């Protein structure tokens, strides 16, 4: 009975996503609509889309599991993640929106070429394709495993069905479908996770009893530090807040699809409230889960296990849809961004510089399908540790792109040489730090001195940006006029 109810709720959810894709396919008439909705989205869609893209399997599955393990030690990360839209908006949101309009940019790639030249654009495209595809694979793997745990469905069947649904609605409706499905997916996430949080907190005996029981398991669980080192905790917070600027290009690109600046600011309000609700709920679920299921063998199964044990099957189905929603809202955005990178940053400049808008749209749609199918094929036998696969892609991209983007937004003196030095040094240093962490701890989540690769790589990238810039001639006046005129 439970499996049947779950199946019906999940089927309704997936059909709804396909219907949205079909509906919005009629609005796509060119690449501008396909990749940016023609900069026409309203505040709610923009805000929810930004946040839903930022949230993934890592949020819905990985974070409650990590809170289950670390208790309050991991809660500041949720707060830092909630601050991320605020930080990215304040750092680059308004500037990117203005610059994108001036140069008709669809992605960071367009902005990089206009500011730092073609080499920077190719670097960005390379980074997107190399590091975002593993991220999609990790998310699809999570889809397959969730459906396996919840419905007893074969991993391969669940993963392929979810993957095909994502590909179809992204292929047909482009950014329209991606952004609007993000809104719906965000609302489903709110309902599912809030219901689960309140129910599990109530079953744990309320907040006071929860604290006492956590302390009885391990007193360090109710402190903000104790189970992790200070440096690790600080780096964790910096990584998931400030470094979203470079690490989460798929989410930040939402800043350039809003109708106007007022819409963008209102979107920020939606985003902060949405993220507060989700991350607070995730924290409560993780803490209460530790008390209710202290002997859970696989922490990643916390959310589906709690849903099955505590909720009516209909709400259990909604919680599972919420988990799928978190995953799908990330994969669709990443897929579209990779399609844009392959089409706009590689196909047009390298293969067909005179491609018409119609040709670009056609290639963009084909690329969406090809990249989506490639991710599905790679997810047939993926590597383990979804949360750390997400963190790996994020850290490397953050180290490579955060400084060049910030400088493109604010620093007229920054030069092409400086930006390229920053990109390559960020990439190499963060990868090297991962290598050292693996050598020392045989782990993708521990590094020398507790220093995260994104933080270290960004610091190295900044140094190289300064050196490269001051050793080269300033950019021309025309570029400065485009980027920095008030």
């Amino acid at each position, binding site marked *: 009975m439970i499996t049947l109810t779950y199946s019906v709720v999940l089927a309704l959810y997936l059909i709804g996503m396909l219907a949205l894709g079909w509906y919005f396919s009629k609005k796509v008439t060119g690449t501008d609509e396909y990749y940016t909705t023609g900069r026409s989205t309203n505040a709610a869609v923009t805000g929810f889309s930004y946040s839903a893209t930022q949230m993934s399997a890592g949020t819905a599955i990985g974070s409650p599991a990590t809170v289950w393990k670390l208790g309050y030690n991991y809660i*500041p990360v949720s707060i830092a993640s909630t*601050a991320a839209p605020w930080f990215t908006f304040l750092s680059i949101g308004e500037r990117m929106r203005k610059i994108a309009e001036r140069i008709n940019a669809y992605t960071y790639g367009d902005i990089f070429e206009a500011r730092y030249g073609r080499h920077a654009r190719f670097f960005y495209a390379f980074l997107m394709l190399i590091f975002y595809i593993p991220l999609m694979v990790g998310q699809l793997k999570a889809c397959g495993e969730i459906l396996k745990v919840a419905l007893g469905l074969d991993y391969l069947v669940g993963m392929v069905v979810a993957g095909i649904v994502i590909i179809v609605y992204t292929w047909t409706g482009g950014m329209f479908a991606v952004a609007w499905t993000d809104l719906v997916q965000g609302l489903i996430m709110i309902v599912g996770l809030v219901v689960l949080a309140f129910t599990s907190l109530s079953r744990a005996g309320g907040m006071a009893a929860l604290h006492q029981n956590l302390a009885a398991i391990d007193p360090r669980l*109710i402190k903000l530090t104790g189970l992790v080192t200070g440096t690790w905790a600080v780096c964790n917070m910096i990584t998931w807040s400030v470094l979203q600027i470079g690490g989460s290009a798929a989410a930040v690109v939402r800043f350039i699809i809003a109708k106007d600046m007022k819409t963008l600011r209102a979107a920020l309000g939606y985003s902060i409230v949405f993220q507060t609700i989700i991350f607070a709920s995730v924290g409560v679920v993780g803490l209460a889960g530790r008390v209710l299921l202290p002997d859970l063998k696989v922490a990643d199964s916390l959310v589906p296990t709690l849903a099955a044990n505590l909720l009516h099957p209909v709400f259990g189905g909604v919680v599972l849809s919420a988990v799928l929603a978190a995953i799908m809202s990330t994969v669709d955005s990443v897929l579209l961004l990779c399609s844009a990178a392959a089409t706009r940053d590689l196909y047009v400049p390298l293969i067909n510089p005179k491609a018409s808008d119609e040709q670009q749209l056609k290639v963009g749609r084909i690329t969406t399908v090809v990249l989506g199918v490639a991710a599905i094929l790679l997810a047939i036998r993926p590597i383990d540790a979804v949360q750390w696969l997400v963190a790996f892609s994020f850290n490397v991209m953050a180290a490579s792109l955060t400084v060049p983007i910030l400088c493109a937004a604010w620093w007229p003196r920054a030069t092409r040489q400086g930006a390229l030095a920053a990109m390559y040094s960020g990439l190499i240093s963060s990868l090297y730090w991962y290598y050292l962490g693996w050598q020392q701890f045989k782990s993708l989540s521990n590094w020398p001195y507790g220093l995260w690769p994104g933080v270290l790589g960004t610091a190295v990238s900044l140094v190289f940006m300064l050196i490269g810039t001051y050793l080269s001639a300033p950019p021309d006046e025309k570029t400065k006029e485009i980027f920095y005129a008030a």
Partner: protein
Amino acid sequence: MGAPSKDGKWIRVPYLRFLGMALFLLSLIVANFVTSGEGPWGIGWNTFYVTWLSYVILIVTSFIFIYRQNREEDKRGESK
């Protein structure tokens, strides 16, 4: 670091904004290291209040910012 802005031709770098961000992050980090988990209301409540207060500060400051920016823009009569 910053663009010339005396004649209003170039953008201004909003240093206060960046300072505010840094302060928020710093206060979060400090709170991490000073909370013991104990509190006058019982075990764990210090931690609870530190975490929830951070969410409240985030929401309140963001809405004040949005309101002020929109008001300034309305005064200037621009929206793009």
